[in-house]
């Protein structure tokens, strides 16, 4: 557009101020991106939780086990399409700070339950055949530099000794939010090595239902079946389970929202003030433009557009920086299951930046629109 030259020339009037203002937007949006990453890390699991999966735990306490014998009973219930089980191992690899979740899983049923985790048939079959085998998630493997064929020693915590595993395969998640940090090994090995009084127990069941709408009914059926037994169950959809877990972390969302609000409010003030100063400096020129024949509306849009361009460039840059930050990896070394910036958050951020751009530019723009030439050019 032919007026583009005028607008861009005005933007570059004071390069330092332009840089600082763009910088302010970049910083605010980078923070926004970072907060979005943290929020996703905590609650991303909830959003992608399997709609047709239920989690069955011991009602008394999540750390209490459930008998293996329940598996058969549950799999025969109407509405149940599949079932698998796992135990939490909680071992230490080299250093206590190298945390990643380790599960002893039932190899005959595990893979079908979690189709989102992908690995080659060959790797999986090798794992099934290898009682001391293990499969690691791509994130954990990358973190420690593991390759297929490595021998991984893990020190047991509530089960003694150092357990050695052969890494038979590495799985990848199929969606961005999938957890690629897990470590699976054979429940048969686990069962073999635990002391007698702990045998025959599993940590939790994951049940697949035929129809997601049926979830609640199946859950209630399971719990009713085992009520008043020594091992009562508590069954929830995977989503509810994940959500409950997140709620326990504390009110993370509220904290994030508060910080975000403070940041954007401050940004609004700073850029609004800068725009106001920038327009004040140009009062004379804007008056001459109007005298020449440029309409009030033109001047309004000129100022507003300048504000929007700054917001867009600064905001876009900030969001890209946040994305770049995620590529550096999780700064908490594995405490967060996922660490990435979802595209939806980036779009939201961009829109928020534009809104701030409009809000901070509107007052100076209206002032410029209302400027009366005769007043502006009145000699002091």
């Amino acid at each position, binding site marked *: 557009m032919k007026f583009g030259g005028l607008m861009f020339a005005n933007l570059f009037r*004071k390069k*330092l*101020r332009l840089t*600082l*203002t763009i*910088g*302010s937007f970049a*910083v*605010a949006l*980078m*923070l926004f991106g*970072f*907060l979005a990453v*943290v929020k996703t890390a905590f609650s991303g699991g909830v959003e992608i939780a399997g709609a047709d999966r239920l989690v069955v735990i011991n009602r*008394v*306490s*999540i*750390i*209490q086990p459930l008998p293996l014998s329940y598996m058969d009973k549950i799999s025969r219930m109407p509405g149940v399409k599949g079932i698998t089980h796992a135990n939490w191992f*909680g071992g*230490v690899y080299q250093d*206590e700070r190298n*945390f990643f979740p380790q599960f002893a899983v039932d190899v005959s049923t595990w893979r079908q339950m979690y189709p989102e985790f992908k690995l080659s048939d060959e790797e999986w079959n090798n794992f099934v055949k290898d009682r001391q085998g293990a499969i690691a998630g791509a994130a954990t493997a990358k973190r420690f530099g593991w390759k297929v064929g490595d021998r991984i020693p893990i*020190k047991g*915590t*509530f089960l*003694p000794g150092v357990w050695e595993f052969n890494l038979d395969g590495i799985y990848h998640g199929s969606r961005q939010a999938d957890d690629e940090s897990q470590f699976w090994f054979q429940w048969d090995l686990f069962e073999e090595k635990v002391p007698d*009084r702990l045998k025959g127990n599993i940590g939790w069941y994951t049940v697949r239902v035929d129809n997601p709408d049926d979830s609640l009914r199946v859950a209630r059926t399971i719990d009713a079946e085992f009520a008043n037994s*020594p091992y*009562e169950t*508590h069954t929830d959809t995977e989503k509810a389970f994940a*959500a*409950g877990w997140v*709620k*326990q*972390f*504390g*009110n993370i969302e509220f904290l994030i929202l508060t*910080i975000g609000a*403070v*940041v954007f*409010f*401050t*940004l609004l*003030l*700073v850029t*609004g*003030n*800068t725009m*106001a*100063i920038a327009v004040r*400096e140009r009062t004379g020129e804007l008056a001459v433009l109007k005298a020449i024949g440029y309409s009030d509306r033109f001047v309004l849009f000129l100022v507003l557009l300048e504000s929007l361009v700054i917001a867009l460039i600064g905001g876009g840059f900030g969001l890209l920086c946040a994305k770049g930050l995620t590529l550096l990896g999780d*700064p*908490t070394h594995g*405490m967060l299951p996922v660490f990435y910036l979802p595209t939806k958050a980036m779009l939201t951020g961009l829109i928020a930046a534009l809104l701030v751009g409009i809000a901070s530019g509107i007052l100076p723009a209206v002032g410029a629109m209302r400027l009366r030439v005769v007043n502006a050019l009145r000699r002091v």
Partner: protein
Amino acid sequence: MAIPVVYNLRSVRQRWTSAVVAVLGIAGTVGVFVAMLSLAHGFKATLVSSGSPDNAMVRRAGSTSEMDSSVSLDQIKILEDAPGVARGANGPLVTAETVVIAPFPLRSTGTDANVQIRGVSEKSLEVRRQVKMVQGRFFHPGVAELIVGHNAVNTYSGLTMGSRVNFGGGTWTVVGVFDAGGSAFDSEVWCDARVLNQIYHRPENIFQSVTVHLTSADALKEFKDALVSNPQLTVDVSREVEYYDKQSRTLTTLITTLGGIVAAIMGIGAIFGALNTMYSAVAERSREIATLRALGFGSGSVVFSFTIEALVISFIGGALGCIAVLPLNGLTTGAMNWQTFSHLAFAFKITPPLLLGGIIFALVMGVLGGIFPAIRAARQPVAPALRGL
């Protein structure tokens, strides 16, 4: 010769909108900074105050926490006689404990959170000196009774005096409330360890940890050496304070790391805001500055003057930020302790050193935001500026 400070103060007052903007930017940053650090601090303080320097904790060798430890009654009997163990009217001040977690509904959201249930012995109050009963009484041994930490009463529903509670397959009655001096125990529910073992189908004479009150803080070495050299015991001995210090590490690291990144980013933003304000100030006042210099004030005075102005603005911003977050002090919130998976209530803890840190942070931002514009102000050629160009 220094430019009179009153010039700066009056200038700030005249261009108060820009100054207000810079002040608020810095206030916001300092506020977030202090709030995050006080959160981490409060969490850590809660856990650390859970331990006394003259208590020792004994767990199975190689265990990382109470959760994966086990100590048998035989072993306990041996360590009761070890040197350094304090003795009270009822015998050695030793308490064998078992810890489980059970879900209870949070008052705030209605959803469940995991509460740490500690099975203790009758000697617990003597070993843990900071814990005091404030309502009701201690439970009777062998009976399914509960005493509840006062934070737990407020955080979860259904734990008030006299309530009947179902968990673990048994029914319990709340008979007392205790105050544990702001430590992690305030979020716990205590009962008889033997009853707990029974209800949870655990072997009768196996506990998870033993806490021992020592004769003095220095007696730890003696006590530890005796145990470690005994072939019948495979245990780890640590000072109770250190145990809890390690426990807090994960969440403290998480909060500090994430909070640190947030504060760093905000700090950069605040500096940009301050720079913008100060550069605009210099631009709008270039004629005045030129006049001052024409009158004989040197460049050094100009730089100094503007830097002082930036410091005043940032100091006010920092103070405002600190004052704004002060009401948070003592506000309890809850989070999950990643190492025990149990819910822990703790409070924001704002200390004078933390506030001082906030103010210093603000001043640093002020200096960084003020010095470059100040130098530019000093370098402007005088004559053109006087003409108003």
